[in-house]
């Protein structure tokens, strides 16, 4: 399926909200009769505070049209700037099985105090009766952020959590709102492969004898995976070792009857793959025959766009993630 392309755009600086709403209506009107379907399953609001995040977020949103026809409202808040509102409205088209599907994207650059009240701007653009997931691209929102009031689901990236304090803030948010974590979705290959290593019945027994786990990676992913393992395997915090590293790797060490088995997931030999590995003591009773190691999983070419699309498919609470996050806050980074 083709990438979304801009069919028509409008932009202006120092405008009123009603100007942008009118411009959007004009664009929609122009699309009528062009043999294009207008369809949407949600209004996606993205909050992109900093320039460096804007590029990645915009790129991910551009790819999103291939998965979820949505009206997109991109917010660029800057409370430290003078009070102003700049707006851009664009009509995009994407080819879906020979149909041209149109959808709209609205960008609001908000300066001054209005940047702290984005909810008052967003509702003019939400589509009636459809979900409004709000994606915070860059920062974990404060639980008191007024924009959360319009969100049916909050999308965050726990990779952006700089310390345990932010993880606790995220946990607090998750207790009030449905939160979907893009980092958790990106870590799915590691979780799946590790779970798969214990799927053969004989390997399952090693789960009762976990001695320690070691999780390497940057702070967000390693805390989250460490929390997941500690919660699911009922480990004490001292059994979970977190190591700073560029790449995510997980190692579970089990000991039974004086013998040691290790279960590992990390970078695969093939480019951009995650692979699993199982090392069992030779001759141990009940060892499964080779080669029941789950095959490597290729990583997405565009992890942000793919995880965002995946998140929007599953806009519901994830009890396992919440438990992992809760436990992660008790682990030392």
């Amino acid at each position, binding site marked *: *399926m083709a990438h979304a392309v801009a069919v028509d755009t409008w932009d202006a600086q120092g405008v009123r909200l009603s100007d942008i709403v009118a411009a959007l209506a004009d664009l929609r009107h122009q699309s009528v009769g062009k043999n294009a*379907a207008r*369809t949407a*399953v949600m209004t996606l609001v993205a909050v992109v505070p900093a320039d460096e995040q804007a590029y990645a977020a915009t790129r991910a949103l551009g790819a999103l*049209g*291939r*998965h*979820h026809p949505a009206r997109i409202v991109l917010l660029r808040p800057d409370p430290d700037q003078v009070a102003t509102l700049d707006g851009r409205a664009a009509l995009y088209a994407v080819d*879906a*099985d*020979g*149909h041209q*599907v149109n959808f709209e994207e609205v960008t609001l650059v908000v300066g001054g105090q209005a940047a702290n009240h984005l909810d008052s701007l967003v509702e003019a653009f939400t589509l009636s009766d459809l979900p409004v997931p709000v994606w915070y691209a860059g920062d974990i929102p404060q639980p008191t952020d007024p924009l959360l009031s319009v969100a049916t689901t909050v999308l965050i990236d726990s990779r952006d959590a700089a310390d345990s304090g932010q993880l606790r803030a995220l946990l607090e948010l998750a207790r009030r709102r449905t939160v979907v974590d893009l980092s958790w979705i990106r870590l799915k290959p590691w*979780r*799946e492969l590790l*779970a*798969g290593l*214990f*799927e053969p*019945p*004989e390997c*399952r*027994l090693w*789960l*009762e004898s976990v001695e320690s786990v070691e999780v390497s990676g940057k702070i967000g992913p390693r805390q989250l995976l460490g929390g997941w393992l500690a919660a*699911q*395997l*009922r480990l004490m915090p001292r059994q979970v070792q977190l190591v700073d590293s560029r790449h995510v*790797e997980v*190692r579970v060490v089990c000991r039974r009857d004086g013998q040691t088995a290790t279960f*590992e*997931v*990390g*970078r695969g030999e093939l480019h951009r*793959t995650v*692979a699993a*590995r*199982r*090392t*069992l*003591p*030779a*001759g*141990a*009773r*009940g*060892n*499964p*025959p*080779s*080669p*029941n*190691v*789950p*095959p*490597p*999983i290729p990583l997405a070419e565009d992890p942000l766009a793919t995880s965002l699309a995946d998140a929007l498919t599953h806009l519901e609470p*994830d*009890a*396992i993630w919440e438990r992992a996050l809760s436990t992660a806050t008790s682990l030392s980074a």
Partner: protein
Amino acid sequence: MSAPEASEAAGTTSGVDPPEEDAPTRQPLPPNPLAEGMQATRRAPPGVLTVFGASGDLTSRKLLPALESLSRRRLLQPGFAVVGVARTPLDDQGFRDLMTTAVPDAGPAWEEVVKHSRYLAGEYDDPDTFSRLLVLLDDLDAELGHPGNRTFYLATIPAMFEKVADGLGAVGLQRPSQPGAAVRLVIEKPFGRDLDSARQLDAALHQEFDESQIYRIDHYLGKETVQNVLALRFANAIFEPLWNRSYIDHVQITVAESLGVEKRGGFYERAGALRDIVQNHVMQVLSLTLMEPPISIDSQGIRDEKVKALRSVVIPSTEQVLSDVVRGQYDSGWSEGVAVPAYRQEPDVDPKSETETFVAMKLTVDNWRWAGVPIYIRTGKRLPKRITEVALQFQGVPHLAFNAAESRDLRPNALVLRIQPDEGVALRFGAKVPGQAFKVRDVLMDMSYGASFLEEAPDAYERLLLDAMVGDPTLFIRSDEVDQAWQIVDPLLTTWEQRQVPLAGYAAGTWGPRQADQLIERDGRQWRTP
């Protein structure tokens, strides 16, 4: 990942202990807490898929790409293997090469499947083929650590179904080799050539396999849009109250193909449109359209209701066949801008062939919901376009307040379920034409699934293969469904043969013979132009 130490291969190939009294595998399996929350994804259990007819077209064109897609989506367990069986002399590597070339852009997971896969050359009526298969499957289970789950897929010509089932039964392969394992037999349509042969086939299969083990594939049921008939009807409150004789005037089912018989002349000569399309695809779509709401969307709930719906279709008498059914055959003509030959001039077709390439018919239904609502069915080759749709034509308003000039372009409402291509739902209703006069005209509210759900839907074979391996028979045809469908269709075959009903000719690229139009026009109705 750390450097290889004592790798699994080194640690385990010699590490399989014989079962002991207290062997861990005999204990209840503890749950895998790391898999918690991931169970929503259905995966095929560990096992082996054995494909009979492994060197054939269906395997290369449909089954292997579907399996590759399943492996890429990680819906096959590690160690999953395919065993190919066919008469073609090939070795394991030859079959693996075939698996690789059948899916040129395969992902890395497919390599794992290919690596484990094996081939067995043999005749289907030779007991030795099945004895060797038994040994091979036992070896594979031991080698790959599988619990004995086996799926046998018969991608052969129908004449081989009984032989393969007999052969499997003769060596005990129809029964699980280990406690808790599942053995399933998947067969492709056609299920018999008529009612008698269908019943014979059924009896032969049941000699060796229980009905719960038999998965009869009609790939139409694997299509998302066919399943969407269920979603549209039973997930929306607004349609179901109208879905009955009080509001619906008649139903039209169209299964049209623009192509001729291409290279399938030999097959088609033996089949014809009635056996090839009506007995299976049309009857499936018909039963989903007519059925009552099931208690639950599961295999028993849905299939019970489908059978009930088919049972309520009036089995045509000889007189009804003669008056309410039209059989036709295409002449030469123009199709999609190209001059095309008549059916009798196609390769491998008898120049005096009496095989029908077109069927139009009217059925009636005797039940509370549908009494008095005729069902018009039309299928054929070399029609103007490829389209499959179900159209529910609603009754007109009881009193039209507009004068004739104002409402000339207004027709009764219609709800159209487009199954292929351009899957979707369209609702036709009247709307005022802008202007001073009060003119009303038809407009179409058209929903395309492709434009609303941009996610790629699984191919029909991919869906059905996974269902068969998982053990979900909902989208497979049960024995009594096959039987009931044949009971409806069989009188047509019999009457055509006994009365030597002549074929009505139609030019290729048209909507069928004039007699088909007359069939519906005498009831004061018209075929839709899809």
